[in-house]
């Protein structure tokens, strides 16, 4: 019985670790996308996102 419990706990910890990694990956993906749209310098991206950048109060120009 005790053996099973230990195995269960290990399984829970493993699931938790992969979940944290997946959530972390999703959050990093979000941050990268945010930087790309709101902060990246190439003129074409700046011009396309111009009004949106001003609208969300990101530094522009």
């Amino acid at each position: 019985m005790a053996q099973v419990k230990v195995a269960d706990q290990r399984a829970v910890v493993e699931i938790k670790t992969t979940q944290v990694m997946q959530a972390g990956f999703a959050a990093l993906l979000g941050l990268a996308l945010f930087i790309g749209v709101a902060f990246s310098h190439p003129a074409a991206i700046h011009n396309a996102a111009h009004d949106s950048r001003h609208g969300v109060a990101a530094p522009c120009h």
Partner: protein
Amino acid sequence: MEFFKSILLSALLSGIVAGFALTGLQTLKVYPLIFAAEVFENAGQSEAGHAHDQVDKEAAADHHADDEWAPADGAERLLYSLLANVLLGVALGLVLAAIFALRGVVDWRQGVIWGLAGFVAVHLAPAFGLPPELPGMPAGDLLARQTWWFATALLTAGGMALIFLGTAMIWRLVGTAMIVLPHIYGAPHPATMESGVPATLAADFATASLATNLVFWAILGILAAIAMARLSRGDTAAEFV
């Protein structure tokens, strides 16, 4: 990968809807104010252009990239703003949904509180040092402002997390210090306060920008939580959509 898929779906749904809503709201006041400011910005540029031709032309090319592609005024410009807002919605939705998934946030009331925290971190705290700016307003070095802005948003988000999610008093103090720190350090300010854009336009724009972003975050938080609730109940993507 079910876990990641639920984050992605939640972020896509909430981000797309919030991005459309933000664009709709921005057409009411934010875009008209930007267009009005651009009239003053362009007038100021051509005046200055006569005075010291070379320098200002270079500055204009640098800041406004006149020779580069830009969406045509009107529908095309609005469409690109919509695209950018939807992408920003999905980007911030990914961060929010990742937190929701880990913390089991499935109640829309909780979602709206998280959304408001996002507004404080991403918009209100940076705006305290760098108010939402209109085209043509004087501003400090772009990279320095972007760095300060991003660092302030991250520090405020981290600080709030320590204050509200931690249990020990010491972490609350550390969190408070993290929130205050960027404002003591100070935001990069322009060398001159002179602006061709009327102050009334700028004041109007600052409140309009903040108010629309508040609504955007509330929608994002509510929808991301509702989506999480549906997805964690085991509804498949097909049923959900």
